[in-house]
């Protein structure tokens, strides 16, 4: 019996190649999109699961409120790890990692320098803790020396080629000499350590033995004993505040007690995040590496689902519309004694066959699109051909999709009454048109929704890019690793400033794009109560900072070499002023210190106020900020004149090479770095637009097929109308209008939904657009335009057909 089903299905599919290919193609596009999205989501969901005992590992967080500022830290104080290890029975082991940024790496007696962007100090048990395998050296003892380090496999190959790296020495930043005591496999691509290449022993890092609980710089990971519930860990963890944190802070702020600390609204709250949750759920001040966001997973998952629904709806629509042709078959089978179930099986077999063919096409599509998708999504996903689960899922997915898309047509068609469909020539209405209309409305509503989403995302990105940030980022070059110049930094800067192609230059590690940050609480002179502390960013800059980045001083003055006292001067921004609740005149000349209670504290005098500028992402409000003079700079910012940049850069490089020959000259443009901050949104935008286009294609395929069917069904009506004198234009209009009504309903349904959903998305940005009315109008217009084009092709074809022919068939 089944063989017959397949046979009939195959032949009847072959008989309508147009419909069959519309069906297969529509389903295949939907499936391919869903496959790619599923791979992406799978990759995101499996971050950090490759580490041994990953389900028992937690990171300790600290939420701090002090002096009016709240900080959500992913790091904790240095001494916390040893306390957790010693005093907590439920903890199996603890390890720490401290990010150390970029390093210059050179082999002993070699000028062959390289640079590693991500290095870190790690506790000696770090690799054993995460179950990472060594290729060379011993996992247990590799970092037991203070000058030991571990390289990843590809880093070792980079510096030592094919020879063994183990036991060799290398020099870091042209200073300290380290011994390579181990080579570890490259860090897994979907882990939070993915960018790290050099791991130095924590034993050589003095600060790691600090007993200070007030500064939070160490990512601390605990591995709980098996079977221990993390909820029971919360209270003991929090007790560390009274037992260790407060006593430690008392050394710096004498007289502070836990009660007074809490009474002034301050707090320190410790918490944990499961290792496996970090990538998607953690969004703290500084993370070990950039995380994804679960919201984006939800968005993508819904897009994938939308695509499948669209494709499946397409199938239902086309199948039921064309079931007229199958009606006769159904009638005959019923009079020959076929049961309803066997007809249903017949049609489901057909749906399954189409679904399976689509799967094959979808796989081919997905395979060829994967490289582009990877680029779009910033991933390195490979098709998991070796995974039986993947194949099983595909197979189950296509069977499920076949059943889902097939059930309605199957039950619809098997309900035909033989007496009706066998009577006469069978040109009567087959019904179900209301359902088909509803399905078309669904399809277009989804498409309109996605169009609105795409437009809003792009509009917001455009807004970010075009927003007046309060500083200038165009033609601004940032030079890295300026510390390699040593004490020639000033000389270098002065020489660069004199270049004809350069407008200005400044030395500072603090930039409005991702860079160093330091948060401090400030007290006005005479204030001893920490209740009045003001939390502010403190940036160390030089005299040329404001002029190079075009910061606007609105009150007071910029730093000046005419005032030697400026070494203790401070310039604040408008937000800081607002936070203090004072006017500029009240604050100018006032002295502030960040060191409450210290006899020798240095006080900074406010000399100016700059207009607010966006030194953080536009997702955040502009916070309180100040800058003081100080020479702790690792980068130099150069403002170029608007001319040929490459020759300008060459000029600067030649100065660099003169001063430090052989040191790598590394730079980037500030606006590129700025754009990187919004990479996630940009990727989302790209992904959105691609899948929106796909969804529109699918919806159009469906509409096209339906229009073809409709025109065919109304051949006789069109013939009669023409004979009675209707023009081609009138008939085209009439046929198209019916579909336009449906699209109109979709637009009415989708616009409010899209508006609502995208407003929710925009809430993540402190600085955001209001969704302009024209975005909604444009989305509606695009939907209407595309559907008119799709439908009118068929309508015109029907309208110009010869009425004599169409009437003769009766």
């Amino acid at each position, binding site marked *: 019996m089944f063989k017959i089903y397949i*046979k009939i299905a195959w032949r*009847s599919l072959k008989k309508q190649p147009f419909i069959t290919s519309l069906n297969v193609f529509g389903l295949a596009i939907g499936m391919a999109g869903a496959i790619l999205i599923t791979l992406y989501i799978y990759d995101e969901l499996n971050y950090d699961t490759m580490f041994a005992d990953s389900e028992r590992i937690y990171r300790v967080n600290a939420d701090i409120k002090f002096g009016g500022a709240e900080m959500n830290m992913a790091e904790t104080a240095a001494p916390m790890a040893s306390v957790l290890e010693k005093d907590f029975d439920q903890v199996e082991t603890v390890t720490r990692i401290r990010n150390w940024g970029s390093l210059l790496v050179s082999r002993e007696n070699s000028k062959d320098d390289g640079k590693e962007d991500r290095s870190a100090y790690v506790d000696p048990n770090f690799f054993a803790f995460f179950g990472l395998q060594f290729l060379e050296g011993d996992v247990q003892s590799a970092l037991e020396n203070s000058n030991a380090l571990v390289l990843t496999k590809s880093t070792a190959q980079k510096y030592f080629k094919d020879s063994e790296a183990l036991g060799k020495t290398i020099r870091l930043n042209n200073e300290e000499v380290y011994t390579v005591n181990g080579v570890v496999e490259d860090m897994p691509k979907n882990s939070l350590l993915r960018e790290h290449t050099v791991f130095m022993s924590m034993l050589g890092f003095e600060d790691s033995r600090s007993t200070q609980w007030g500064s939070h710089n160490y990512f601390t990971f605990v591995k709980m004993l098996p079977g221990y519930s993390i909820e029971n860990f919360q209270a003991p963890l929090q007790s560390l505040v009274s037992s260790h944190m407060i006593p430690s802070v008392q050394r710096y702020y004498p007289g502070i007690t836990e009660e007074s600390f809490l009474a002034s609204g301050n707090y320190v709250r410790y918490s944990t995040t499961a290792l496996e949750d970090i990538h998607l759920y953690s969004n703290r001040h500084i993370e070990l590496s950039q995380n994804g966001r679960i919201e984006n997973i939800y968005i993508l998952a819904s897009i994938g689902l939308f695509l499948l629904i669209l494709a499946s709806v397409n199938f239902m629509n086309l199948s039921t519309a064309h079931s007229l042709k199958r009606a006769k078959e159904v009638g005959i*089978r019923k*009079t*020959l*004694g076929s049961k309803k179930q066997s007809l249903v099986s017949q049609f489901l077999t057909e749906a399954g066959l189409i679904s399976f063919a689509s799967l094959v096409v979808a796989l081919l599509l997905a395979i060829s699109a994967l490289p582009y998708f990877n680029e779009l999504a910033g991933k390195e996903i490979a098709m998991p051909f070796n995974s039986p689960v993947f194949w099983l899922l595909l197979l189950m997915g296509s069977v499920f999709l076949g059943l889902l898309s097939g059930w309605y047509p199957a039950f619809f068609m098997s309900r035909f009454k033989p007496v009706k469909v066998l009577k006469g020539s069978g040109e009567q209405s087959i019904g179900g048109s209301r359902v088909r209309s509803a399905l078309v409305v669904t399809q277009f509503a989804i498409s309109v929704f996605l169009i609105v989403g795409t437009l809003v995302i792009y509009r917001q990105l455009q807004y970010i890019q075009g927003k007046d940030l309060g500083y200038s980022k165009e033609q601004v070059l940032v030079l890295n690793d300026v510390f390699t110049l040593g004490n020639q930094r000033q000389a270098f800067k002065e020489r660069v400033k004199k270049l004809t192609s350069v407008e200005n230059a400044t030395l500072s590690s603090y930039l409005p794009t991702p860079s160093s940050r330091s948060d401090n609480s400030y007290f006005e002179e005479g204030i001893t109560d920490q209740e009045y502390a003001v939390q502010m960013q403190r940036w160390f800059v030089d005299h040329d900072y404001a002029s190079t980045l075009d910061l606007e001083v609105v009150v007071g003055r910029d730093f000046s070499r005419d005032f030697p006292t400026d070494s203790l001067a401070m310039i604040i921004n408008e937000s800081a002023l607002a936070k203090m609740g004072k006017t500029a005149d009240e604050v100018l000349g006032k002295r502030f210190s960040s060191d409450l209670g210290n006899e020798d504290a240095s006080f900074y005098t406010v000399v100016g106020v700059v207009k607010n500028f966006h030194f953080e992402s536009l997702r955040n409000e502009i916070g309180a900020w100040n800058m003081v003079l100080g020479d702790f700079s690792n980068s130099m910012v150069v403002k170029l004149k608007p001319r040929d940049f490459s020759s300008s850069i060459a000029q600067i490089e030649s100065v660099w090479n003169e001063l430090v020959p052989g040191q790598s000259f590394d730079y980037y443009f500030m606006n590129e770095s700025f754009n990187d901050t919004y990479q996630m949104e940009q990727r989302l935008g790209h992904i959105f637009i691609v899948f929106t286009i796909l969804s529109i294609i699918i919806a159009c395929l469906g509409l096209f097929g339906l229009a073809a069917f409709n025109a065919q069904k109304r051949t006789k009506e069109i013939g009669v109308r023409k004979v009675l004198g209707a023009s081609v234009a009138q008939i085209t209009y009439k046929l198209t209008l019916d579909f336009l009504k449906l699209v109109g309903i979709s637009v009415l349904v989708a616009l409010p939904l899209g508006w609502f959903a995208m407003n929710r998305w925009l809430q993540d940005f402190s600085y955001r657009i209001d969704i302009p009315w024209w975005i909604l109008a444009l989305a509606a217009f695009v939907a209407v335009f595309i559907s008119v084009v799709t439908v009118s092709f068929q309508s015109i074809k029907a309208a110009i057909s010869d009425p004599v022919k169409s009437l003769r068939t009766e």
Partner: protein
Amino acid sequence: MLLQLNNIFKWVQQGGQRVFLLKDINLTVEEGEFISIMGPSGSGKSTLLNVIGMLDNFDEGEYSFLDEPVHQLKEKHRANLYKQYIGFVFQAYHLIDELTVYENLEMPLLYKKHSGSERKAMVADMLDRFNIVGKKDLFPTQLSGGQQQLVGVARALISKPKLILADEPTGNLNSAQGEEIMQLFKELNEEGVTIVQVTHSEKNASYGRRIINLLDGRRV
């Protein structure tokens, strides 16, 4: 007695009025009969045939088929009944275009419990009997009208029904082809198959041994 209709009424509601399709039909069909139903268009011939074939319901009256009260049977039971005892022949042949002659003949057997080899034998038998062995791999569209109807009759006969219902079996054929089919019916009837046919033509009607005339849903 093969079947008996007692006071059968069938109507539709049209603009608040009952329009009768069948009105007080009484009919008894004995085994081995050959009955022709005649009447002008819209007189209810096909409706009556469909009621007899259990493809259509009626609104009032009693219908017993082989002493089974059809009007009391459930849909499923009824389907089993006609599947087993009734074969249909249509004016427009109604072969399945996607299937070959062989497969079309095999189709009714698939809905009953016959083994593969049994089906093969039965289809071969039919092909043989109707002299269409050479055409068994052709599709219906490749046959002439007369040949298609031949296959249609063969398909109706293959499950060895007691009753054949034919709705204008020669309506789409030319006179020579029509003649052939009617001759075939006559032979079948002589072999003991009961036949009820609907026809417009006096000539075809005369093949039957009894003629029933309908007008506006009534026997006249």
